[in-house]
């Protein structure tokens, strides 16, 4: 017994420092495990802040500057001190935070950007990607807003539809999109609904007249596959039945083919790249589309959902819902980034999106390229959030799950 106890004591002495050291070492090592880090960031701040409530007081940058100080930062006309910026970025590592796990669409944009961004910034810093998945990228948005140091070395991407979460007052939102230092956005998205041909639905008018509900597949609340049918139903009175919970649009496609659902609504870009065969074989009809910027060049004959809204509030709700699509895959830095560094980031972002090497990679990875510069993104964000309270309420009601 005594021998056992002594053995226990001796080994526990080894074990507990091991446990504690393990936890710290893991936290310290993991960000460095990203590809190609050159110099660790010179900041003492924790790299990945815990999302627990106890971490809140640690938010040094939380009281952000008022929104009014933001726009001047975006004006490239005022000549920034290039030399100082170059000195700042030289030998540093830029971190791009992605609100989803590795391998998804947001991650692909961020990693492709990270490969080319450095060469367009003064001082040629290295860029690494860090995945902070959680809560449909809300976690990353909150982290960027509250816990990230606004030094121009960290920015990130999260779902543009999180703007609507702010607008409709969804719980868990701890950011104000108007205060982010927007770097840019990647493309303009257009949502479209397709119906399997044998449902007999050829146009949206057919759907409005239909007696049977049109069954659409969805992934989860907060995604266009769920929210567009919901808004459509609430504003146009179309008979839509949403079956939600599929693991991704690929599973919805399978469900359409096995006749579990009749169709689905998601981004036209994605429909083209993953379901081209459906379009080629006329297996489906495109019923309706919606975006902030009118009809998509491919879909000149397809009506926009707004045209079918029953009243003005409905039309405005549809418009407000679709507005964030104009800033798809946005990149934002925390509020309060020094103006000249933000301007440098914005310019580098736009220059990267014009770089032939980047475009070549983007084409291979099937990425849409239609960038908006930071100031324009801010404009869209303001437009979304300036929707009148009535419209916001209508939208919140429409988006609420039945």
């Amino acid at each position, binding site marked *: 017994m005594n021998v056992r106890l002594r*053995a226990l004591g*001796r*080994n526990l002495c*080894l*074990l507990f420092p*091991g*446990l504690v*050291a*393990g*936890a710290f*070492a*893991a*936290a310290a090592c*993991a*960000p460095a*495990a990203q*590809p190609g880090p050159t110099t660790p960031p010179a900041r003492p701040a924790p790299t990945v802040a*815990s*999302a*627990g*409530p106890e971490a809140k007081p640690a938010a040094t940058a939380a009281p952000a500057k008022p929104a009014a100080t933001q726009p001047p930062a975006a004006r490239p006309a005022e000549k920034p001190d290039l030399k100082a910026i170059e000195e700042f970025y030289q030998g540093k590592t830029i971190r791009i935070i992605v609100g989803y*796990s*590795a*391998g998804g669409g947001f991650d*692909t944009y961020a990693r492709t950007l990270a490969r080319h961004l450095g060469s367009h910034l003064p001082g040629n810093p290295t860029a690494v990607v*860090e*995945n*902070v*998945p*959680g*809560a*449909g990228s*809300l*976690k990353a948005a909150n982290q960027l807003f509250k816990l990230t140091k606004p030094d121009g070395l960290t920015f990130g991407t999260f779902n543009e539809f999180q703007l609507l979460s702010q607008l409709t007052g969804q719980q*868990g939102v701890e950011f104000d999109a108007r205060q982010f230092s927007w770097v840019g956005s990647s493309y303009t998205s257009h949502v479209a609904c397709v119906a399997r041909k044998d449902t007999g639905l050829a146009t949206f008018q057919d759907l409005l007249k239909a007696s049977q509900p049109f*069954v659409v597949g969805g992934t*989860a*609340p907060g995604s266009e596959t769920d929210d567009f049918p919901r808004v459509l139903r609430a504003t146009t009175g179309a008979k839509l039945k949403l*079956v*939600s*919970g*599929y*693991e*991704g649009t*690929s*599973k919805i*496609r*399978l*469900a359409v*083919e*096995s006749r*579990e*659902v009749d169709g689905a609504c998601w981004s036209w870009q994605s429909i083209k*790249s993953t379901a081209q*065969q459906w379009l080629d074989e006329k297996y489906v009809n495109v019923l309706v589309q919606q975006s902030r910027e009118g009809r998509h060049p491919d879909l000149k004959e397809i009506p926009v959902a707004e045209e079918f809204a029953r009243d003005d509030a409905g039309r405005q709700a549809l418009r407000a819902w679709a507005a964030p699509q104009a800033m798809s895959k946005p990149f934002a830095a925390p509020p309060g980034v020094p103006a000249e560094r933000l301007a440098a980031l914005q310019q580098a972002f736009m220059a990267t999106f014009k770089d032939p090497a980047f475009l070549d*990679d983007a084409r*291979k*990875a*099937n990425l849409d390229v239609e960038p908006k510069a930071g100031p324009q993104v801010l404009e869209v964000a303001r437009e979304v959030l300036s929707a009148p309270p009535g419209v916001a309420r209508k939208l919140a009601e429409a988006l609420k*799950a039945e």
Partner: protein
Amino acid sequence: MQKVFARRRPSMSTLMFIGFGIAAAIAWVNSADANLIESFGKGFLAIFEPRPFLLMMVGIIIGFMVGILPGLGGAVTMAIMLPFTFDMKPVEAFAFLLGMLSVTATTGDITSVLFGVPGEVISAALVVDGHPMAKKGQAGRALGAVLMSSLVGAVIGAFAIVLAIPFVRPLVLSFGSPEFFMLSILGITFVASISSGNVLKGIIAGGLGLMLAMIGMDPQSGIQRYTFGMLHFWDGIGLVPVAVGLFAFPEMFDLAVKGTSIAGERVGKIGGVMEGVKDTFRYWWLTVRCSLLGAFTGMIPGLGGSVAQWIAYAHAAQSSPDKERFGKGAIEGVLGPGAANNSKEGGNLIPTVAFGVPTSITMAILLGAFLIQGLVPGPSMLTKNLPLTMSFVWVIVVSNVITVALCFIFINQLAKITYIRGGLLIPPIILLVYVGSFAEKNALLDLITTLFFGLVGLAMVYLDWPRPPLVLGLVLGSLAENYLFLSYARYSLDFLTRPIVVILILICLTAVFFPLVESQIRRRLAPTAEVEVFASEP
């Protein structure tokens, strides 16, 4: 060998296999054509050209490391490696990625066996019986069995692709959400057979797993369940922190308390590698059945990557004449999951290639590789691009042959790790465990989750509660819930009347009640030692 066959009773699943096999053979012969066989040869030659072969070797080396390191998974590695395939040709890119992927499944098993820490999430089932073998000084035997069964599984899984090609479309399309729901329920009924004899405790642990699966935002209405207002829990608990904590910590404590090496005793030849290789052939039909099970589980889009191993483990336990050995170092419990988690890679590829529907996270990333190569997954992969599809088959086979051959060279040295003093092993293992659980989501809170489940695991071990049912409940719980909602939303209660659903319900009922009835019969026939074991059943 004779003895094993003589004692085996014809289990339900064996009969199912035979039926399925006959149906498959008839359908295949009807629809196979010359193109298939020609492409088969072309695919083989394609991967032996210098560049694809070299890249496959690079993939194997990367996969080897990633597999050995606990927690660090194949999915993350593939996502990071994806940009490197921009400049590759299709055959090269897939030789690189698939070579890497199929190796992680094999080498992950090694960590599970040696340290009792799951090397990959898909290797967690190997801990249950593999590690007790290592503790008994039979690490070499367990590793030999794992490697050999992995190889057999990989080959069978790869050729399952070839066999499935002619009728993959109707097969996959005949499964909808209601069928997936019933399949996950069928998986849950296996809880009883992986409870190492204590069915009541097993069912409770399984229920706990189901409860854990409910943590997070309800996917239907967005209601938060057990999240305590923390964003971190909106997506539920990760499988890595739970599995790693549950299995790794008790082992580390045990090692610390004993103050010895992992292997308590030294045994001679019986613990050797060749013995394990022989075991694979001693239990040949079990290995083959579990390989087929793995391939089939992988083929069904919707069951995910980590289910196959547990189903195979349950099957191995269920079809064994003495279930009490399981959890204490039964060789069948090593062979089953070892074979299944390699054969499922082949199965996984089928819907990914034929429909563009990924069955797991790794396959979703592989789908990205298709787009980069300008290939559209779908029927054209089975006609115009068939040689490329066939090269996938060969990559899986060849990379596994190479890995297993490499492993055999220094496996005896690897097994000697189990003779190192525990005090030296614990700190690096704990470190790797934490790195692994952190790497899944880059979240510090996951370290606390790992620690928490480590303590839960410790309590379960000391109070003699089986841990596998908890993991199985967690894995299948969210699937079952999701598909139940989908089925109900689409068909309301009518989904219960679909033919395949009815068949699956009957199978579930049989799976639950057959052992009870059987034990009654046995009790009448042989009122001796076995009564004690079954007497504890509810």
